[in-house]
């Protein structure tokens, strides 16, 4: 494991922000970290990166305890915690050079990471002239500066437009393909599903579930199935009265049905018996479905 949290606990006053949280992040994984607002995601990430001290438990990165070794445990870690903030009166390049000087990183890396994040041409401009998307990319650039083995990203696409989000997502996939382990918290379940190999969900500071994304989706109690039919309205009406159908929506003529794993053949049979032609059945449980089934419908990410 490249990163582990062991019984991590942190309280702010009477409120327990993180409660006995244990996670194991395998080497090379893209690990999604999900939870509703105020569930303790940011506090956990800040404890991983030595910004906040836990009340109990510890964070182990590459075998080194962050609590025992302080920032020295972060030698091969790059982090972007929430919004990327820099000295606005200095250029992006100067900001990165300052950070390279702190790390003892070769100055040639500055241009490399600027180019990599698409800021090569704007490096000499002051940060105050950057758009939010550019600042966020500069944030990723600084995280990559020391050529890390582990990237910890807290809401890296916050405040970005769809194009910017796609760019960041592509960059993360590219970095993951190079073998960098990525631990990412995000509001966007769809985005996490697209890029993550593993996922953990927390609520009220407690771990709800964690593991390999595919395995979790397969093991989900609620199988979301997309069914292509000739008469979606009729099918919707029919299924709304069936007690083993937990959810049913029709979007663009395609039914999205929430059923138990064992009920898919029964579903097809039922539709056909009622003269509804079925042209395709695609089991497609989304992370959102898993999230709602685990945390309840009231959960708001």
């Amino acid at each position, binding site marked *: 494991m490249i990163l582990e949290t062991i019984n991590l606990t942190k309280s702010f006053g009477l409120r327990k922000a993180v409660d006995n949280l244990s996670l194991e992040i395998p080497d090379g994984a893209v690990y999604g970290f999900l939870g509703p607002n105020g569930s303790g995601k940011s506090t956990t990430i800040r404890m991983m990166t030595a910004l906040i*001290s836990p009340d109990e438990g510890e964070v182990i990165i590459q075998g080194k305890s962050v609590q025992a070794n302080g920032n020295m445990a*972060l030698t091969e870690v790059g982090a972007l*915690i*929430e919004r990327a903030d820099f000295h606005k009166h*200095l250029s992006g390049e100067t900001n990165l050079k300052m950070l390279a*000087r702190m*790390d003892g990183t070769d100055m040639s890396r500055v241009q490399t990471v600027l180019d990599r994040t698409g800021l090569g041409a704007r490096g000499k401009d002051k940060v105050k002239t950057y758009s939010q998307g550019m600042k966020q990319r500069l944030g990723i650039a600084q995280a990559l500066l*020391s050529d890390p083995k582990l990237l910890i990203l807290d809401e890296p696409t916050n405040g970005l437009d769809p194009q910017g989000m796609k760019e960041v997502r592509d960059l993360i996939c590219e970095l993951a393909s190079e073998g960098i382990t990525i631990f990412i918290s995000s509001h966007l379940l769809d985005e996490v599903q697209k890029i993550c190999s593993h996922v953990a969900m927390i609520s009220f500071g407690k771990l709800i579930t964690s593991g390999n994304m595919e395995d979790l989706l397969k093991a989900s109690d609620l199988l979301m199935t997309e069914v292509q039919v000739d008469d979606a309205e009729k099918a919707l009406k029919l299924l709304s009265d069936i007690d083993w159908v937990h959810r049913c929506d029709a979007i663009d003529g395609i039914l999205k049905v929430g059923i138990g794993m064992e009920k898919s053949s029964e579903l097809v049979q039922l539709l056909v018996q009622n003269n509804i032609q079925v042209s395709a059945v695609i089991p497609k449980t989304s992370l959102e479905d898993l999230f709602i089934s685990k945390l309840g419908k009231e959960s708001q990410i």
Partner: protein
Amino acid sequence: MFGLIQNELLVIIGRWRSYIGFIGISILMPLILWGFVHGSNELHNDYARELGGTFMVVGNIFNSFLATYIIMNTLWIHIPFLITLAAGDSVAADGSNGIFRITLTRSVSRLKILVSKLLATYIYTAALLIFCAFWSLGVGSLVLGTGDLITIDNGILILDESQAWIRMALSFTLAILVMCTVATLCFMFSALVNNAVGPIIGTMFLIIISYMIMGIPLEFFEKIEPYLFVKYFNVWWDAFKDPIPWGEIGKKLVILGLYSAGFFGIAVNVFLKKDIKS
């Protein structure tokens, strides 16, 4: 460590607030020097009248040394304020601007970062006083000329020109050390809070209150006077005594050094445990 100090200096240089002190001195000093040029006869006559009973005054006793001596006596409330403008920002601004989320997640210890910030603040403090000296002694010498320095130390003390240069250099060096204590106090406040205004107000409040306490001639206040660090601010004045009281200077510097160590110790203690939540 050198790289970290270089970083902090880059930040200080890049902030417009850092230049307020230099701009202020650049406006104030020429004005004072202009005033001295036009009022030098008046000042010379005042001095000559006071000394006339004992000495026969030949030539002009008013020169850049005397002007600097007078300026130094008047600026010791204002210079700390100018220093706090940079020192107050040093830690607090990084907290409020979210810079710590970037810098404190790197493989550099918080202690090193804090020490580099303090040293950069000291360099700024020294630069401000050297700039002050440049105007009063450097430009002042061109405008008012040089000569003997007449000061008062249990009577009249006349220092010849070569001695005056040495004493002025010593005095400014001591002044830098005094102002480093002010900078450390402000730095401590800067590590305690997340805004730059609080440290400025806190530091100036403490200095002004201490001066006020020292000015009240009551036994109770006289008893606590030795515990007020501003009591030792006048160490720069000792440079103009004859002979130079090295023992007294050393004692005052040790006391100021202990205060600085105490202020920095508090800053370290708070900063190393500080949770970065913003």
